[in-house]
């Protein structure tokens, strides 16, 4: 299949991936310093998935995310400064400091929310896809979920409902090999999550999640199918996380040099840069320029978040209901 990406698109894809990487590496550092409260689950290493998926989507399309949601937010276009402030629990945050890392949502960009509940997103995506179907403008909805959520009943129910209702939905299983500390080799009894698609009467495919182009192409097929009205697909993206399940996880369940090897040999940004230069004539200089811009953006985001005000005491009681 022809890649539907222009040079500008590729640079944009790189920018999104690089932004996610910088964002997460920086959150890792700032969390260790004690500046960030609560539970934080980092997406670094998995950038090709978020970018490969979301480069196929437009603003009207919806995504639902997971506890490991920063990458999905950035790839879908959520404001990075608002996100950083949210992670710091500040009033200027995307959710005014009332959601935090696990609940960043931005309905204006079609980001229906990170989710603290494993398997919480797929049912919601069925609804987003149903709404798109009623609107009749070719919109689609994407559920990101992990290998852990691939074992949740909500996910199975949603796959079945999406197929029964022939919804324009795409289920993206990001299999990073671990549900918290438990290996997918044990917990995903069928091996590849994508094989489960057969049981729900939809196409399923497993792709290398370290390869932006592989993810992009698989998603392109799935999105086109959904937009045509032919129903849902399951795309399994196999990848590795650079950090632990949460910040503070010593990762002793992983092999001694596992993360080191992943960083050295499976870095999706390195792979992207190589192919972009060899096949699409994108220069190192162009990417470096983006790197600098991204670094500046993240610096500014952290500085602004640190300086931003806490929510006001009266915020405790607001926005429980629209009207009560």
């Amino acid at each position, binding site marked *: 299949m022809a890649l539907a990406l222009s040079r500008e698109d590729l640079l944009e894809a790189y920018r999104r991936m690089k932004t996610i990487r910088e964002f997460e590496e920086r959150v890792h550092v700032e969390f260790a310093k004690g500046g960030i409260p609560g539970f934080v689950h980092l997406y670094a290493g998995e950038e090709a998935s978020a970018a490969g998926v979301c480069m196929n989507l437009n603003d009207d399309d919806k995504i639902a995310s997971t506890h490991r949601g920063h990458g999905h937010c950035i790839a879908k276009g959520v404001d990075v400064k608002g996100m950083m402030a949210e992670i710091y629990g500040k009033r200027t945050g995307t959710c005014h400091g009332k959601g935090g890392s696990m609940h960043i*949502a931005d*309905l204006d960009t079609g980001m229906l929310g990170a989710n603290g509940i494993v398997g919480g997103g797929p*049912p919601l995506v069925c*609804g987003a896809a149903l709404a*798109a179907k009623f609107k009749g403008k070719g919109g689609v909805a994407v559920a990101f979920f992990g290998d852990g959520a691939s074992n949740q009943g909500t996910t199975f129910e949603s796959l*079945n409902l999406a197929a029964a209702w022939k919804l324009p939905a795409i289920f993206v299983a990001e299999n990073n090999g671990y549900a918290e500390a438990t290996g997918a080799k044990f917990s995903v009894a069928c091996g590849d999550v994508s094989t489960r698609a057969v049981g729900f009467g939809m196409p399923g495919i497993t792709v290398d999640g370290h390869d932006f182009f592989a993810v992009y192409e698989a998603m392109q097929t799935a999105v086109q199918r959904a937009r045509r009205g032919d129903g849902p697909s399951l795309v399994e993206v196999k990848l590795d996380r650079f950090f632990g399940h949460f910040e503070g996880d010593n990762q002793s369940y992983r092999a001694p040099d596992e993360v080191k090897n992943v960083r050295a040999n499976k870095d999706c940004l390195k792979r992207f840069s190589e192919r972009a230069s060899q096949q699409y004539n994108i220069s190192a200089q162009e990417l470096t320029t983006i790197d600098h811009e991204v670094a500046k953006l993240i610096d500014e985001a952290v500085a602004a978040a640190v300086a931003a005000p806490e929510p006001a005491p009266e915020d405790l009681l607001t926005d*429980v209901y*629209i009207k009560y």
Partner: protein
Amino acid sequence: MARKISFQQAINEALDQEMARDPTVILMGEDVVGGTGSDGEMDAWGGVLGVTKGLYGKYGNRIMDTPISESAFVGAAIGAATCGMRPVCELMFIDFLGVCFDQIYNQAAKFRYMFGGKARTPVVIRTMIGAGFRAAAQHSQCLYPIFTHIPGLKVVIPSSPYDAKGLLIQAIRDDDPVIFCEHKALYTMEGEVPEESYTIPFGEAKVVREGSDVTIVALARMVNMAQKAAANLAKDGISCEIIDPRTTSPFDEETILESVENTGRLVIVDEATPRCGMAADISAMVAQKGFNFLNAPIEMVTPPHTPVPFAGSLEDLYIPSPARIEAAVRKCAEYA
């Protein structure tokens, strides 16, 4: 005034009128059409008790049968609500909340707050409550206190056809998630209902019967039980004021407190189990805010703290009866 129709017809009419008025109103649930994918006729059931019968013929694919997958379709209703639709989703029995609760209390209820006031989730979950059908422990409960406990949800419990129609139309137009509880023993109850569309605001209790000696607060089917008890008590000169809160979230404290200020005596009748239930909640509220009004200890008439039994003889003992309400009122009235 109006013609008389049943509680069930009132709900059907509310759905019909709102679907006609607003194209974003859609219905989904198990057998709400009844017949999808089967070899016989469509709209064969129109809901397990026929409450949505006839709507498929008028609105076609806006009313959808679902697989028996409560998490998926309740979640889908919620997701569609965040994307501009106004879904009315049927959870056949409230007892089934266990297979979909996460979508309701962790997702729908919290979006508005967690997302900093940016989400709008105008979903209605209609669900059957109540004992009396020999339907046993998993199809007879009154679990609305569980929903009432959750900030972000609104909980509506009508006790008459008139209230059912007005409150359901309000629920559909409301922008927050609403749990709409329909007592299955009330479906055949007839009452005067205007043909035209109307709404009843949430958080406004109804004084069902005026009286001066004892205040009775009751919900759903217990309102009728309380009325029977009050009619008997009136013969003995005991005047009961009956208040139906109609919604447990939001909750009208004022009407109850005003009544208790008048009567000085309070009996709460609730079909939910007693621990952490509405009776306990209302009792605590009045003890705290109306302590000086009280001339007698508050009486609570509830089922025992047991599951709902199957055998008719036991179920009849389980459900608060007019006789038990009468006894509680007498005890309260006689306390000096």
